[in-house]
């Protein structure tokens, strides 16, 4: 369990990126932070592995204040996946995946063997192990990024817009893959996105943030849809799909679901 208690962050240049955040992130579930650009999602996420230290409040992991933990050791125990994968471009795929275990002292043979297994886990062919990141497609790179995040079998996996830079089709594939993986592994996943659809798809808990790093609502997707906490949330939830108020319309005998603007959203199962 990760807990934020009255956490704020003001950067040296005066930007207030996060202010007064109280939230509990339940274990073995996926929590998605969603909000528009600059709303402090990344900052919040990075406080968990001490890439950013809060200027006020506390971040607790299983009851321990992270500020008492040694940052390097802490980071090595937490998986981190970012947009553009953040792979080291000068290391082969397998070395990238094996980085953290080897930093923690695992022997190269073992670390590589485990890395190969992880490639299977994330659905990559083992033949890619000896390639450099630049020789992979964006989607493949992201998978490697996930494999690297899982390499030390961490309890916590932080993902910062991991699918932000890939194709819609590939993104959809990766999302399904993540759902499958999470079903198998049951990590505590904290996932950042600015795409409300992705948030609703992946999140057990969705945290909607607004400018200034305040939390507008934190709840399950259905709950948020049914009872948006305020106009901002209602707007934000609706924003990405025009309106979320839907109607049924008959087209050639099929029930098409359309929104307020008459735009097609899908087909009702018959």
């Amino acid at each position, binding site marked *: 369990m990760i807990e934020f208690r009255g956490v704020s962050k003001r950067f040296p*240049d005066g930007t207030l990126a996060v202010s007064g955040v109280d939230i509990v992130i339940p274990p073995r579930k996926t929590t998605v932070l969603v909000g528009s*650009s600059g709303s402090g999602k990344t900052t919040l996420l990075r406080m968990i592995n001490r890439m950013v230290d809060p200027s006020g409040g506390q971040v607790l992991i299983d009851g321990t204040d992270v500020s008492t933990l040694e940052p390097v050791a802490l980071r090595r125990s937490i998986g981190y996946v970012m947009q*553009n994968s953040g792979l080291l471009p000068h290391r082969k795929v397998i070395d990238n995946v094996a980085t953290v275990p080897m930093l923690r002292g695992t022997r190269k043979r073992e670390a590589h063997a485990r890395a190969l297994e992880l490639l299977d886990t994330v659905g990559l062919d083992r033949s890619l192990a000896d390639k450099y990141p630049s020789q992979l497609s*964006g989607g493949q790179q992201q998978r490697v990024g996930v494999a690297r995040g899982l390499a030390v079998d961490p309890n916590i996996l932080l993902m910062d817009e991991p699918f932000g*830079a890939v194709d819609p089709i590939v993104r959809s594939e990766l999302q399904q893959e993540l759902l499958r993986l999470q079903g198998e592994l049951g990590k505590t996943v904290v996932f950042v996105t600015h795409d409300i659809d992705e948030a609703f798809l992946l999140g057990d808990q969705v945290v909607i943030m607004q400018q200034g790093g305040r939390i507008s609502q934190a709840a399950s997707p259905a709950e948020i849809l049914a009872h948006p906490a305020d106009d901002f949330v209602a707007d934000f939830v609706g924003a990405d799909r025009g309106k979320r108020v839907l109607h049924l319309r008959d087209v050639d005998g099929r029930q098409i679901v359309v929104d307020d603007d008459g735009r097609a959203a899908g087909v009702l199962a018959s």
Partner: protein
Amino acid sequence: MNLVADGIAWILDPANWQGAGSIPERIGQHLLLSLVVLLIASAIALPAGAVIGHTGRGKQFVVMVSGGLRALPTLGVLTLFGLWLGIGLAAPVISLVILAVPPLLAGAYAGFEAVDRRTIDAARAMGMREREIVGGVELPLGLPIIVGGVRSAALQIIATATLAAYVADVGLGRPIFQGLKTRDYGEMLGGSILVILLALLVDGAFALAQRLVVPAGVRATRTRELRSRPPRPRTVVGRPIHEGNRQ
């Protein structure tokens, strides 16, 4: 250390400030020579760099020429041309021009190259002609880097123009050579100090110019580069047809 003091004493000695070969005269010669060289080299290198940077063709040429010319030892070129052309300014001017071309070419090329391809693409899509793109988009946006190349060239010219004294009775190289050969190290260091001061002064002036030529709108962005959010990577498509060359 007292050598430096000797150098300063030489500079301050009023006897060196008058008559033939006085300090002001040497400085004037040095500056004039440097300026002439810079102008000639610019006339050669800037247009070439601009064309290569604009078309994107001939990048290998820039690498080769700037590498090759840089490898040309100035002293060798100077002596070779000195033998051909005799004493006087011709040989030093030629060898200094060769020295100055690589940074100028590189600067001009890099300046044009550095302009965001998407901006140029948009300008072309709007219907700007190639010369309008060169003059109205690439030149103003690339100017800081181009001036950077000129600055770098000017610095090298001024420092190296001392060699001109090897074959011509010109510039601040004279006290250096003369001091060297007569063991008057005060004179030699005095000359060197003057060259360094001159170089610093000119460098400072160019640094200022470089700031001034940054277009206003571009300067405004400088402050906000704190975070990286690369947009979806995308290709610029097609080698657009330039005006006139119908296929």
